[in-house]
């Protein structure tokens, strides 16, 4: 855990410091434009350095009770979250979510009846509520065709 705890502030440091250096050199921002981001970024980088040093030295933050009881995440759940992006890209904002719900619920042990009912309800909400009632311009065709 210590390695991951040190990695996160190190990554933040690298990204912010990289952006600031690029701002000064490649992007050529004038001092009035870069001054405030430089101040904010420098403070953040300094805090990150201190945090990395503290983590390597073995200091652990006091955790609140809520944070101690976090559910362990599974890789399959991470994959399922990102899969919705694929469904929306491939089938659009109306059919994509409906197909995703149907496939997800069936794959995770729900009955055909429940999966189809929730998929149909999703169609009703996206097409009926959002497009027809609220007049939201949800793309009905797949995103790759836009």
């Amino acid at each position, binding site marked *: 855990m210590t390695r991951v*705890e040190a990695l*996160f502030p190190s990554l*933040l440091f690298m990204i912010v410091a990289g*952006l600031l250096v*690029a*701002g000064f050199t490649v*992007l050529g*921002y*004038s001092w*009035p*434009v*870069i001054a*405030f*981001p430089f101040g*904010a*970024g420098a*403070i*953040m980088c300094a*805090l*990150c350095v*201190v*945090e990395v040093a*503290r983590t390597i030295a073995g200091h652990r*933050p*006091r*955790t*609140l*009770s*809520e*944070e101690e009881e*976090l*559910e*362990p*995440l*599974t890789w399959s*759940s*991470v994959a*399922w*979250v*990102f899969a*919705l*992006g694929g469904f929306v890209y491939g089938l659009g*904002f109306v059919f994509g*979510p409906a197909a*995703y*719900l149907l496939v997800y*619920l069936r794959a*995770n042990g*729900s009955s055909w009846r429940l999966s189809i009912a*929730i998929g149909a309800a*999703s169609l009703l*909400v*996206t097409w009926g509520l*959002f497009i027809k009632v*609220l007049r*939201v*311009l*949800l*793309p009905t065709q797949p*995103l790759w065709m836009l």
Partner: protein
Amino acid sequence: MLEAFLSAGGQIFQPAVLAAMAFALPIGLIVGLLPGISGISALAFLIPFTFGMQPLVGLAFLLASYAAVSQGGSMTAILLGVPGEVSNAATVMDGHKLAKAGKAGYAIGAALMASAIGGLFGCALLIILLPIMQPVILSFASPENFFLSLAGIAFIAVLSSGAPSRGLIAGSLGIFMSLFGYDPIEGVPRFWMGSEYLLDGFRLIPLALGLFAIPEILALMSSGKSIARQGSVEQISFRQGIEGALAVFRHWGMTLRSSALGSVIGVMPGVGGTTATFVAYAAARQTAANPETFGQGRIEGVIAPEAAKNAEEGGALVPTLALGIPGSASMAMLLGAFLVVGLQPGPEFLAKHMDLALALAYICALANFAASFLMFLLSRTLVYVTRVPGRVLAPILLVFVVIGTYAAQNSATDVLYVFIFGVLGVAMERLNYNRPALLLGFVLGETIERYFQVSLKAYGWLFFMRPVSIAIIVIALVCLLWPSRRQIASLWGRR
């Protein structure tokens, strides 16, 4: 001033405002009972739906749903011993004991009535304090506003988490992220990396949903569980509920004392509802006869934290509306919602929109009372929501997040950023980095830069030497260092 009071009263009875509240209350009650969805996440879920609404209507929708969410948390705390939010944890100690003894209805009746009275108390305080604070706040110039905004982020970052240094990193990262896109003074786009999307900077809704909703959805998908097992939900007796509600009036002194404690703690930026409920519980225990029986099913152990919890939210609205400094983590999210509907809370807001601020206080009071009443009526049915398994709930919520994000600005790139910020949110949650501090830094970042630039131009580099600025810096430092006073004193002693 009387005009503002009357105008505010008239505004909340607009059909659109009442309709928004009527729509939001049941949503809030259901969301409050759902496993793993906290009040701050509920606000994140609902913000995209306020796009296009008038400011008061959108805020009425959010405040009403937020008031209802906290009632749901109390129900699960009493019936199942699972607090909906951390601030409901104090209610578990006696509330769940009462439920186990077959007095679930009694505890719920008391909790809902205490919540309603606490909520009314907090809002009454808000209504009294807003006009009093106005002349003081109007004496603030840009340097004071700059320091106030910085202090707000520092309070949330340092006081509302167990890792102050990580909270400060999160807060400063939020400020840095808000600086992408056009510079407010020179008009030059910063760090846009050739992406047209980034010319206007990152957007609030993808950030809020990514930081708060995605981690909760992932946790729900991973566990797949509901909070109630089949057959484990206690039956609620209506008669017991009435008796519980009457118990609040039998302990009226303690109810008012707990409400006052909650309100005062709420006014302190960054301290939050959890502190308020446990302080009220401890105070009730200390002043009660037979304090050793607390934790074994005393009704006062339910009334005190519930009254304090809802009173705290009214108190937390005081610095949020008057100074633009959120009193709690949820208020940081609400501050973002103000921006979405086109308003910027703070000294200028109070000067220009006092009627709107008072209308929000009325809405808060009305919503608290209506949510308690509605929950009482529907509690027998709504409690079955706790049986919905996470594996069914999570994909539905995810679909809502994606569609809500797209609908807010008709942008597919926003949806992509929800997933990117989701990764950041999960990492921050797991590594104990304060997510509300990042959000608040993001919300206030642009304002902080503007106040800084104006202060620099108007007063030069010594702008922090103005007497009011010095007073703000000293007060902020004392408040921030107060929890660590013993360590500081011992370090001083060693020297």
